[in-house]
């Protein structure tokens, strides 16, 4: 089955090359052609109503340089006349752009060995019939777990993608990947009280979903006994890996981006070498983690993916770069030029983290909890992480699944809890990191403990 991906990458690579040649003929000093082909199969269920979707998103995005100015245009499809039209549009955009004095040139090729992540033939061969079977099991196991489970949204999907990028400075490369994911979000109702629970798996290897339904159900059921906290106070918060993930991603992405640092929008600006977090906190941006969902041979500019230490034992070590930000500082890109998903061809590259990998500690989640005298445990997902202020670090999130911890034990479940603080100041308050690292859509993340946050509810 990888033969299919190989065939597509050949086609995309030769088209990217063709595009670069055409741009030159049209007068572009430099050009870059990015083409992506992403095949999505998605089967979802909403309490017995099934929705199925499969299709291939295909398109190209072109950057050209004209009189030192950069223009970008994108189109769906890859027909030759669309390539021509899009080059022309990019040139038209470049004409009206003011000169960006910080722009010098597009990316130069860098030679570092790199590779794509794991590609599992079983994932490539996973069919709509297989997906339907898994979805059916997900739904059945959840409803059978407890009769108070009343409603459920679930789904299983596979994405297989190839992208190729070529530029006039000699970059010509492609990457591919395939992964599957599935999960469920459900509600349990008892005595008029409605609670939610969720569970999901994302994986590059064939995943087994048969426990996902019951785990989600269990998470919702245990919330049915929840009581309001009834106060507002500062305390220790134990974050389950999946709960802290989105906040980590948003904050670390924004603060580590060299573009943000250069533009004065990063909390980490001017802090290289300084201690910004507690010494249990070590974070690596690992673009080469074989099982990581964000692992590709190259980034979206064709620069080899790399492994960059962001924080080591609390000290700030590096920022991450695309070629634009790297050239400002006369250094090499760290291979962090990312584009949007699942239609990457639509956007210009921006500095994005690949797999964020936190160095894990010694204790699992239960072990972490057992060391907390008084605090709260936050599980599942949190609301509002996407709206945190990534420049200042201030956040206020709501945890629908939270529990009181007393004397190292999880006591009563709580009604939705508001947790507020400043993420960057809190980095120094990370007391412990767990051993339960888990592959999520942001990287490989363990549970962790942050002391001294304001909780209210």
């Amino acid at each position, binding site marked *: 089955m990888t033969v299919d991906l190989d065939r597509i990458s050949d086609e995309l690579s030769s088209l990217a090359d063709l595009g670069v040649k055409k741009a030159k003929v049209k007068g572009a000093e430099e050009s870059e052609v990015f083409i992506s082909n992403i095949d999505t199969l998605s089967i979802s269920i909403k309490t017995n109503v099934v929705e199925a979707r499969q*299709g291939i998103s295909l398109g190209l995005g072109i950057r050209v340089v004209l009189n030192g100015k950069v223009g970008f245009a*994108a189109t769906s499809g890859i027909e030759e006349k669309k390539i021509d039209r899009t080059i022309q549009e990019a040139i038209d955009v470049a004409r009206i752009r003011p000169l960006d004095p910080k722009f010098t040139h597009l990316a130069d090729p860098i030679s570092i060995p790199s590779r794509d992540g794991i590609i599992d033939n079983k994932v490539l061969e996973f069919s709509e019939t297989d997906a339907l079977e898994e979805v059916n099991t997900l739904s059945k196991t959840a409803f059978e777990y407890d009769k108070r489970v009343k409603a459920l949204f679930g789904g299983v999907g596979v994405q297989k993608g190839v992208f190729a990028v070529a530029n006039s400075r000699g970059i010509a490369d492609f990457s591919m990947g395939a992964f599957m994911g599935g999960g469920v979000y459900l509600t349990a109702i008892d005595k008029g009280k409605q609670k939610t629970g969720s569970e999901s798996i994302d994986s590059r290897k064939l995943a087994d979903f048969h426990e996902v339904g019951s785990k989600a159900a269990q998470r919702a059921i245990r919330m049915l006994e929840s009581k309001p906290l009834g106060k507002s106070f500062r305390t220790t918060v134990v974050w389950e890996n999946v709960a802290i993930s989105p906040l980590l991603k948003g904050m670390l992405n924004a603060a580590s981006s060299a573009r943000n640092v250069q533009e004065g929008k990063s909390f980490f600006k001017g802090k290289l070498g300084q201690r910004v977090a507690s010494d249990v906190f070590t974070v690596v941006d690992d673009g080469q983690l074989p099982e990581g969902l964000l692992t590709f041979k190259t980034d979206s500019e064709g620069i080899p993916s790399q492994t960059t230490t962001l924080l080591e034992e609390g000290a700030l070590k590096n920022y991450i770069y695309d070629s634009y930000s790297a050239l400002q500082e006369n250094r090499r890109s760290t291979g962090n030029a990312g584009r949007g998903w699942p239609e990457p061809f639509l956007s210009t590259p921006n500095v994005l983290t690949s797999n964020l990998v936190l160095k894990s500690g010694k204790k699992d989640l239960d072990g972490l909890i057992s060391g907390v005298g008084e605090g709260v445990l936050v599980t599942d997902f949190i609301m509002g992480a996407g709206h945190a202020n990534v420049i200042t670090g201030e956040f206020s999130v709501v945890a629908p699944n939270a529990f009181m911890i007393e004397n190292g034990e999880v006591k009563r479940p709580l009604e939705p809890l508001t947790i507020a603080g400043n993420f960057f100041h809190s980095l120094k308050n990370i007391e412990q990191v767990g051993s339960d690292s888990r592959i999520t859509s942001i990287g490989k993340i363990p549970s962790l403990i942050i002391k001294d946050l*304001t909780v209210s509810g």
Partner: protein
Amino acid sequence: MFDLPQHAIITGEKLGVRFVEARTDDLSIREIKTEMEEVKDVKTMRRIGVGVNVYYKGATGYSFATRLSKKAVEEATKRAFRIAKASSKIAKIKIDPGQAKPYRQRALKLTVKKHPQDSSIALKKDVVLRTVKAARDHGKNVSSITCRYGEFFGQKCFTNSEGTEISWSPLIVDLRVHVVSKLGDLLADGGDGIAGSFGLELFETNKYSPEKIGENAGKWAAEKLGAKPAPPGKNRALCENRLVGVLAHESFGHLTESDFVISGMSPLAGKLGQQLGSKHATIIDEGTPDVSQYRGFWLPFDDQGIETAKTTILDKGKLVGYLHDRNTATHMNSGFTGNGRAVNYNFPPIVRMKNTYFSPGDLSLEEAMEQLDTGIYAIRTAGGQANMDGTFMFKALRGYYVERGEVKYPLREVTLTGSILNFLKNIEGATRELFIWSSYFGGCGKGEQWPLPVGLGGPHLLVREVQFGGEK
């Protein structure tokens, strides 16, 4: 543009499918982004594709083609048929699109004086740079100004097995600016903007000129440098138009989407006819409000070829309706509301909102401030999120502490949390003006379908016992 979707219908019928919907979406996007006075990004993109939705034995299968050929459309139709057929085996609730009258309306569009497709990108760049200048002139200790202009337009063509043929042209223009002021270690932000279905002539008005929008953002960021944290706990609140719009849409509107109702996910399932809110709480979802007066997003037809209705969902506190696509309306034996929408050709239509807003009341803003007496005046939103159990978390972009009807000092990080059902019960009054916010940057997300243009708004609402978060 009708050729390819019509070919999908014919292909489907040959396969023995009773009902097929097909559409061509040809949508263009232009975007300008600046950091300070520097143009960072100009983007232009066009997406054309054909989407095919096949109904087979109570299940649907959706596929699409980005290669615009009869062969590609045939393949997509067959793929859609194959997955619909496989799905029909496990679908316990059978999907039935029902029957609708065939509509035939071509080339519908909103009349504007200066359509963005007719003016140069240089002119739009000028609008952006004027905004930035005004923000700088009126800001203090400015450390960054990000300004974005976006436009979205094109053509949508729809046809189905019933013979409906609709084509119309969506339009959104969006200008927004975000200013960060920095004093020592203290960072504060402010923002302003306008978005909706209108022509560039709106930027020539005093209220929405780039100068005014920039001035507001600069001023409000500067003001926040001296802001205090919002007092945590329960406070009386006066919530501004855009903020209440977010509540109407995110927190309440989604719960009235009938796919959530049928699946039992919504706490509003089975509550039709019940009194949920105070008599000041009326919520409407409408396709074509008077956008010249109230702003918002102009949406004459949905992506199932159904004419959009003005749907009252909450009437003086009483739940009176849900929002439907064809399938859910048929399942629940209800009338069509025109809420079957898809974000682009990658996706099938699902139940989505149109312009969702609280109806205005009879107070003037001054009277509302007086009635507020002491509490928090919360304005606009810097985002938010709602859970299906009705709980929400929304961050106001600006806020003020009000004492005895007078604004005392600005607040930072004003976060409202609570349950929408309590919020609706606690509404004590509404002002008489209506404003509907729409957007190109952002928009509504449901499942993977994001960002769908919608409108949301209302008057100012006076609400008691609103829970505010914040650091202690």
